């Protein structure tokens, strides 16, 4: 298949994903009537009246949890291809993967000792 044809589906997806929201929002904002009320402009809270504003200080614990999750999740993702080809890669691949996991295990020990796994 010529190169252009192989990637044509990607191009179509890209064009449509830009064009459709643009069209929907654009036509709605251009052709729709403009009658703003307070009720229409408040953020949606499943029918409950919003109390106060959302600008409050977050505890950095949430960020820390997200960061740790990201790192170890990416580590797991790296393990998947190795797991699929486990037999083919043999002992050499096993030792390589063990080294990789040990390095990240040391990272886990570091995080543990530093107290980043404590929620309170």
């Amino acid at each position, binding site marked *: 298949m010529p190169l252009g044809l192989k990637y044509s589906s990607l191009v179509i997806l890209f064009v449509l994903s830009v064009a459709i929201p643009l069209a929907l929002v654009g036509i709605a904002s251009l052709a729709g009537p403009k009658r703003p009320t307070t009720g229409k402009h408040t953020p949606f809270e499943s029918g409950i009246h919003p109390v106060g504003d959302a600008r409050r200080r977050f505890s950095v614990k949430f960020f820390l949890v997200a960061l740790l999750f990201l790192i170890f999740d990416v580590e797991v993702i790296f393990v998947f291809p190795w797991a699929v080809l486990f037999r*083919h*890669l*043999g*002992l*050499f*691949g096993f030792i390589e993967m063990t080294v990789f996991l040990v*390095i990240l295990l*040391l*990272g886990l*020990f*570091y995080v543990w*000792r*530093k107290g980043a796994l404590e929620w309170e």
Partner: protein
Amino acid sequence: MTFPVVDTNVLLQLAPMLVLLLAGLVFMMAGAFTRRAGAFQRSFVIVFHIVVLVYVIKLWSVEASPILNGMLIVDRFSLFFTALVTLCALGTVLTSAHYLDRFGMNRGEFFSMLFFSTMGMVVLVSALDLISVFLGIELMSLAIYILVAFRRRDFLSNEAALKYFLIGAFAIGFFLYGVSLIYGVTGSTNFGDIAAAVAEKGLARNPLFLLAIALILAGLGFKVSSVPFHMWTPDVYQGAPTPITSFMATAVKAASFAAFVRLFYMCFMTSKDQWVAIIWVLAVVTMTVGNVVALVQRNIKRMMAYSSIAHAGYILIGIAALSVDNNNAASGIMFYVVVYAFMTLGAFALISAIEKKGITRGLEEPDYSGLGLERPFLGFCMAAFMFSLAGIPPTAGFFAKYYVFSAAVNEGLVGLVIIAVLNSALSLYYYLRVVVAMYMQRRDVPVPVDADLGIRIVLLISLLAVLWLGFGPSGVVPGVEDVLEWTRTSLAKVNGLGM
């Protein structure tokens, strides 16, 4: 089992990287289990660096070929720069001895990040594939971002790290876009395959290929602080802890220029007539902006930052003079980088001895006035470094400029060299202003200097290097001929491999 058993030759070639990795992990754990990194830990840090240098010396005579499926090559070019960045890291460790305690930074993680960054640089200078270059740059940079932020309670340090990280992320994005375009056009990211594809498909004038070169220039230009990608340098250099500033100014620049030279030498030389004008312009604006803005700086760390921008401009002249016929320009660049590393390490060692807390860090002119008269050795060292940075004979700085400029003149870039010489003359003002303040102005109270043993060692070795690498004959101690010989043997392979 279809996979190769472990090849001891490959392991030996990877030894510097592996030792640095092991050291990084060891000190990461040390940082988790100890409260303060005392002299005991610091001595092990120095030992690890010496082990790496021993491996480099051992590998110098090993025959080099692409390893790891063509991702890396540990030839003399990369060994040269491996030794250089390890020496810079060692200098940083020595400079930071009292500094860390003074500013509450004395933890094992400091050395861990230093090792990881050095490892990234070793990967970067050994890279034979654009992905390896990216890996090396990112590993080097992420560790440096943490190091820049190491003064956790200091506002300037945090600001510097944030600026460096955000702008660095953008710049590496440009670099990656260039890499992806090269992959699209040539079908590979390996330097050898790219060079072969350019020769076979005649891509030397291909617009996509040239666009890729420009984007890669943007990414690498950021790393070496070339104008107009230099905006981060003054703030980051000023905010970072001074030993880390010296590490950035010497090792990061050296490693980035190594990748720059190898990439351009191996892949882009056929398109040289297309990009030499760009490098010409980049060199001129980099030198000029660096020198002109340095004239008005009061803070000495900021002045040194702009000076490092100017020196990157001089090195870019070497890049513009790269030639397929001879190694003069590349050899000159390598020599310049070595000399620049010693000058800068020494200058920043002295600056870290006088730095204090506060917004100005005690680094403006009244803060070091009369230093030369009170502490003669320190004053003499700083004067030598300032003269060398300005390029005054018989210091090594003059010879470094001489080799690069003569290579450029031989390539026909006479106008560029004239501008460079004028810029060097211009730079005399702000370098000598420091010397004037040290020797011809006085303070009521003597300058409080904390020049501990580590700083003195760095100052002494840098002073000797700056004075010896110019006129010093090669004998027991390597002189300029030895260093140039090392650069030439390093480049013989690089030039032969790609083209």
